[in-house]
């Protein structure tokens, strides 16, 4: 079981509800807090090497993003969120052709690792390379290069709407790639 606290549940469902109503600040908060929870979840379950917990974090965040319309706002958010994390964790093991080494028991201690993510080449980064050049330039401008939608539009000489559409398509394409490679 996950360390579910009533506070996490109330706070995260409030943030996601606000995000779905169009509050981008709330969405960023939600994603950062979710990343921290999923990181703990993945690190507790990946007992041996082969799967990088941070890959699971990223794939889970992406799945949460493209499937956020499946959350029913009258339902608790944590069971939904952890079910997605579990699905992506199993998926990550399967994709690497490994035996699933998920500890279903309750492990009290987390593995002693720094809380910050470890930096390495991520699967999502590799998936980004597989996009068409037009989509890739938009997605990497907004993510790796940290530009806003408006700055990206100026830099690439296209409209903001076109940036939004390409960003959405690019993220959806990356998410689909993970679904297909199993």
């Amino acid at each position: 079981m996950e360390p579910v606290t009533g506070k996490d549940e109330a706070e995260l469902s409030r943030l996601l509800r606000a995000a779905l109503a169009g509050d981008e600040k709330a969405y960023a908060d939600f994603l950062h807090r979710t990343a921290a929870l999923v990181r703990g979840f993945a690190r507790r379950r990946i007992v041996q090497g082969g799967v990088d917990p941070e890959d699971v974090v990223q794939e889970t965040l992406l799945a949460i993003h493209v499937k956020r319309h499946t959350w029913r706002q009258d339902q608790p958010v944590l069971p939904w969120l952890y079910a997605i994390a579990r699905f992506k964790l199993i998926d990550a093991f399967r994709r690497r052709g490994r035996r699933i080494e998920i500890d279903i028991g309750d492990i009290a201690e987390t593995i002693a690792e720094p809380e910050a993510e470890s930096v390495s080449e991520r699967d999502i980064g590799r998936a980004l390379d597989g996009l068409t050049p037009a989509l890739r330039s938009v997605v990497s401008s907004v993510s790796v290069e940290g530009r806003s939608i408006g700055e990206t539009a100026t830099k690439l000489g296209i409209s903001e709407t076109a940036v939004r559409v390409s960003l959405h398509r690019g993220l959806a394409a990356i998410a689909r790639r993970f679904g297909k490679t199993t």
Partner: protein
Amino acid sequence: MRTDDLIKALDADARSRAMPQAAAWWVALGAAVLIAATVFMLTIGPRPDMASAMHTMRFPAKFTYTVALAVTAFVFIRALSVPGAATRRLALAMWVAPILVAVAVILELLAVPSADWGRRLIGTNMYICMTFIPLIGLGPLAVFLMALRHGAPPRPVLSGAVAGLLAGGVAATFYAAHCFDDSPLFVATWYTIAIAFLTALGALGGRLFVRW
């Protein structure tokens, strides 16, 4: 890509909207019934004596089995398409339709002499049944698999199979309005085979198209 960078991209895409999954299921059901009705009316259509047949026991009973299957499968698949949703009780509810059929079969065996059992089981329409239930159900199955793809089913193969049961329930409801073989012995045999085919096809579709 660092996780913080990914979050920047996801946040920038916060405005994109998809239809809520709960609404998507109603749209899918509406489309599926429309497709099934169209195929049904363009091919075999209802039997001419439907109004008088409704006053018999066996004809209307067919709809209780098929509608029970469709309703339980619809409720089950909606939960299956959402991560973390409780599904155990809904899975148990899937027994309602088979139990209704089993009870009807027992009553039929008690009501008619054993010499008649074989004739009623074989009926006159078994090939039409096994052709048209899958045929009418094919479009609905495709629609339900698309709705599953729109969702996030943690068990794609099971979900695809339930999509097949749901498509089978919808298709069998229409087909039952056409068929003159009203004996539960016929229904329990040939409808089951036809729906099993759609279920297997749905499971395959779940495996191939529904992963996310």
